């Protein structure tokens, strides 16, 4: 294998010093001067109601209040994949806490006071808080206009129902597969909603200046997509794409919550009504919980048939998603799961129905894992139960069924090269799978759990990335990209890719979060596609710059291009060992010829990447025929869990997780994703739970009542393992790993509980209380 100088090295993060010194500025840290206005949002206290009237007269009398805006000011719908959403509620509210209006004032206090004085008259409507109720015959229609909403061509809304999208897979003949089975297991698994809990709140500041320029500073995963959606939604007010500029400072955690557009559009819209002033909209911790995207809940009905040897003959997976009040983004979670809920298995006969269902709960949306955590909970639980029934080892049954390179996915495309088998072997070895656990304490039960995972980026087939690479006089580089560094280290690996190709050290490459006016297009930083997608754009830009360098040196020094190479910031030549031309001596000012003229000029590289083989054109009844997913990243995880059988309290002693990164461009950053993802996964299965009351109001929107782990709650030991089976179209073979690391954790824990106690828990979260009740039930 070729030896790399920067690729595969645990290079220090390019934004590391900013972050450990306290210098890193996040959106709310920016200063906007004494003319800054503050907006306070008015929320609806009903999960479903008609808005009869809004009286803003008292609010406008509050000193220092400049304006009050309502839905009437912005009757424009928006949405990423389906335009079912409005900036402020129009004729009705559809979830408890939905924004109705906003009061804009000189101080936050005046804005709050004004917000309390906005009077809204409602007529409550029947509300639906459960997806199964929502699809019952005669259920109240939450979006009577559904059939008129614009949406991407791969969605199939059902008019005059609450089903916003139905992704259907039909592969082979499932009925026949079940007939051939020696054993069929059918059961239902339930996963509730979760909150991202990024520590930084959503924040957005917008200014519509007197020249007609709309600038938005936002804590964002999607600067260009936000620009696109702002321009689309505000087009009736005369806004065009090049009028909108989105500037993205550091982001204090995203996990999906800051993808697409949520509250940022409120700032953008309000700014249009107070031209000339910057306006700040800040969420607080409570709103982070109830008025940003939430992870969708799901009721998953799963049926798998197997032969005696464990080979799967058929799979049927019906998933009923609680997608919430607006599904402009959530419907694509449902779609992604429909395509992949077969799991990392080679199944000839499969039937999958994934339903995106409106409810009167907050909008569902992207969350690290994009639906895969949810369906894997059932699927990987099911695999263990089938193995137990057949008397086959849980890892062995998986080995017999895993998908291999070239096998057909659920939608009929070929599986990419992958290291799933290696991941299984490495995890099994590290967790000592074949050694039986023995507890010396009669009050402590021990169990081992195992789970596989796979995930594909869920993105439109034409999602693209681009890069400008600019040299400076000293041969340092400004690398302009528009992915977001959410902490995963994206900017650092982009610098490593350019460094490797151009022989310029990463310490001389400056790459920062984007400004859509300066940096070229990127779709969004989601889907764990950015290392792969934007990495390809950077690779191409670096190669473009290198080609320019070689061409210039060739025509001025009369050396053949194919003899030139870059090393230590110099151009060298394979046939003239003494030749070395430092980049800094010509990279901006060119090369001087004997006659005194200069050739060349500033070297600027350009790179664009789009996966041109991807397509969503398929038969809607079967999903066969397209190539909707570019590739899958796979892996395996296992844990040792101890359970106090008196209290049900659980402690994870050890977790091992192997992920096939294709090529770990920066191993310390890949390991950071594994370790962080494991704890986020453990948190969703052991600690977190959103509790809504009968009104659809979230009861625990704070860190006192909605628990996420502290340093005292971490596993005793974590062993991150990197597998590297190159992705053929990845930069240096890399593919994404960011989301994947958390998705096997819930079934892994459920399987460990079953191993320890012989009880199977089919609903998340798996709290100590639930385990304890199961122990008591079993004792009777």
């Amino acid at each position, binding site marked *: 294998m070729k030896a790399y100088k920067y690729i595969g090295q*645990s290079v*220090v*993060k390019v*934004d*590391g*010093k*900013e*972050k*450990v*010194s*306290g*210098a*890193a*500025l*996040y959106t*709310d*840290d920016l*200063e906007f001067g004494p003319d800054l206005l503050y907006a306070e949002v008015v929320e609806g206290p009903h999960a479903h109601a008609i808005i009869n009237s809004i009286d803003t007269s008292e609010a406008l009398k509050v000193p220092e209040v400049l304006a009050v805006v309502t839905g009437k000011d912005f009757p424009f719908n928006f949405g990423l994949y389906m335009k079912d959403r409005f900036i402020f509620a129009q004729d009705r509210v559809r979830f408890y806490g939905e924004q109705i209006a906003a009061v804009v004032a000189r101080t936050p206090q005046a804005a709050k006071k004004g917000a309390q004085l906005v009077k809204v008259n409602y007529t409550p409507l029947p509300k639906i808080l459960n997806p199964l109720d929502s699809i019952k015959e005669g259920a109240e229609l939450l979006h009577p206009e559904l059939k008129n909403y614009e949406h991407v061509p791969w969605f199939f809304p059902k008019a005059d129902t609450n089903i916003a999208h139905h992704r259907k897979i039909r592969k082979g003949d499932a009925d026949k597969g079940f007939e051939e089975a020696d054993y069929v297991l059918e059961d239902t698994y339930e996963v509730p909603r979760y909150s*991202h*809990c*990024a*520590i*930084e*709140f959503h924040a957005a500041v917008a200014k519509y200046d007197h020249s007609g320029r709309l600038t938005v500073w936002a804590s964002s995963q999607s600067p260009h997509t936000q620009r696109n959606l702002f321009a689309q939604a505000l087009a009736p007010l005369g806004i065009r794409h090049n009028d909108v500029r989105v500037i993205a400072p*550091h*982001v*204090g*955690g*995203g*996990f999906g919550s800051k993808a697409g557009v949520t509250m940022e559009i409120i700032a953008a819209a309000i700014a249009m009504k107070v031209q000339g002033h910057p306006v700040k909209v800040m969420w*607080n*911790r409570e709103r982070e919980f109830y008025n940003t995207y939430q992870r969708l809940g799901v009721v998953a009905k799963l049926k798998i048939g197997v032969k005696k040897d464990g080979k799967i003959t058929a799979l049927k997976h019906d998933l009923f998603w609680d997608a919430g009040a607006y599904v402009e983004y959530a419907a694509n979670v449902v779609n992604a799961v429909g395509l992949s809920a077969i799991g990392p298995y080679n199944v000839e006969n499969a039937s999958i129905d994934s339903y995106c269902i409106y409810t009167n709960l907050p909008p569902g949306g992207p969350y690290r894992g994009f639906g895969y955590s949810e369906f894997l909970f059932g699927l990987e639980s099911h695999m263990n139960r089938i193995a137990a029934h057949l008397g086959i080892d849980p890892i062995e049954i998986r080995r017999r069924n895993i998908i291999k390179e070239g096998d057909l996915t659920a939608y009929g495309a070929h599986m990419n090269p992958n290291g799933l088998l290696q991941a299984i072997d490495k995890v099994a070895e590290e967790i000592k799978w074949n050694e039986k656990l023995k507890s010396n304490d009669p009050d402590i039960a021990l169990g081992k759990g195992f789970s596989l995972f796979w995930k594909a980026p869920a993105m439109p087939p034409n999602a693209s990335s681009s890069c400008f690479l600019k040299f400076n006089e000293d041969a340092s580089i400004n690398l302009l990209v528009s992915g977001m560094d*959410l*902490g*995963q*280290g994206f900017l650092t690996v982009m610098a490593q890719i350019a460094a490797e190709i151009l022989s310029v050290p990463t310490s001389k490459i400056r790459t920062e979060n984007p400004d859509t006016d300066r940096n070229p297009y990127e779709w969004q930083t989601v889907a764990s596609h950015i290392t792969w997608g934007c990495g390809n754009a950077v690779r191409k830009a670096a190669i473009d710059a290198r080609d320019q360098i070689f061409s210039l040196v060739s025509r001025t020094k009369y050396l053949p291009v194919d003899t030139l190479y870059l090393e230590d910031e110099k151009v060298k030549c394979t046939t003239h060992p003494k030749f070395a031309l430092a980049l800094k001596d010509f990279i901006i000012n060119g090369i001087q010829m004997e006659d005194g003229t200069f050739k060349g000029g500033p070297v600027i590289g350009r790179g664009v990447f789009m996966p041109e083989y991807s397509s969503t054109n398929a038969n809607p009844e079967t999903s066969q025929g397209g190539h909707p997913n570019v590739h899958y990243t796979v892996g395996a995880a296992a844990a040792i869990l101890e359970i106090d059988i008196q209290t049900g309290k659980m402690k994870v002693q050890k977790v091992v997780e192997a992920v096939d990164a294709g090529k770990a461009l*920066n191993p*310390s*950053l890949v390991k*950071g994703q594994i*370790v*962080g*993802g*494991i*704890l*986020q996964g453990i948190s969703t299965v052991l600690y977190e739970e959103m509790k809504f009351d009968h009104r659809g109001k979230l009861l625990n929107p*704070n*860190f*006192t009542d909605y628990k*996420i*782990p*502290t*340093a*005292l709650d*971490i596993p005793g030991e*974590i062993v991150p393992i990197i597998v590297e089976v190159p992705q053929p179209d990845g930069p240096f073979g890399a593919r994404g790993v960011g989301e994947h690391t958390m998705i096997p954790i819930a079934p892994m824990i459920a399987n460990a509980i079953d191993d320890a106690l012989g009880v199977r828990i089919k609903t998340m979260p798996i709290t100590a209380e639930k385990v304890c009740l199961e122990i008591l039930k079993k004792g009777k």
Partner: protein
Amino acid sequence: MKKISFKLNGETRFLHVEPNETLLDVLRDRMGVKSPKCGCDNGDCGACTVMLDGKTVRSCLIFAIEVDGHEISTLENISKNGLSPLQKAFLEKNVFQCGYCAPGMILSATELITNNPHPSEHEIKEALAGNLCRCTGYTPVIEAILELTKKD
């Protein structure tokens, strides 16, 4: 409004504050000190951690009026003389991800190793338990502190 004075990162500062202004808001909005962050406004997350007379406190739970005559120090104070060995250890090991919890986490860890130069793993976990982080899983932070403070 009451006039108060306190030492902020080594410099005596004077200002008028309302009795209900939190130290966090005053530091961020009126003194331009941005490393303390707001992550909950409720004392749960520790992102707003600062040092009050050398001890870590949650600046969202303290009124500015209370620090009259006292000494406040933030991460800016540590960073102004170059990175501390602890900051360097965190930097070199790529410990932090989004970095939003880092100022608070670094102050809690600094307080720990100032008072206890060779803490046990459990002592480190206890010292960090008031600083929530959603990205790192804490393990890299703990490992970096352990390695920095281990006895030779």
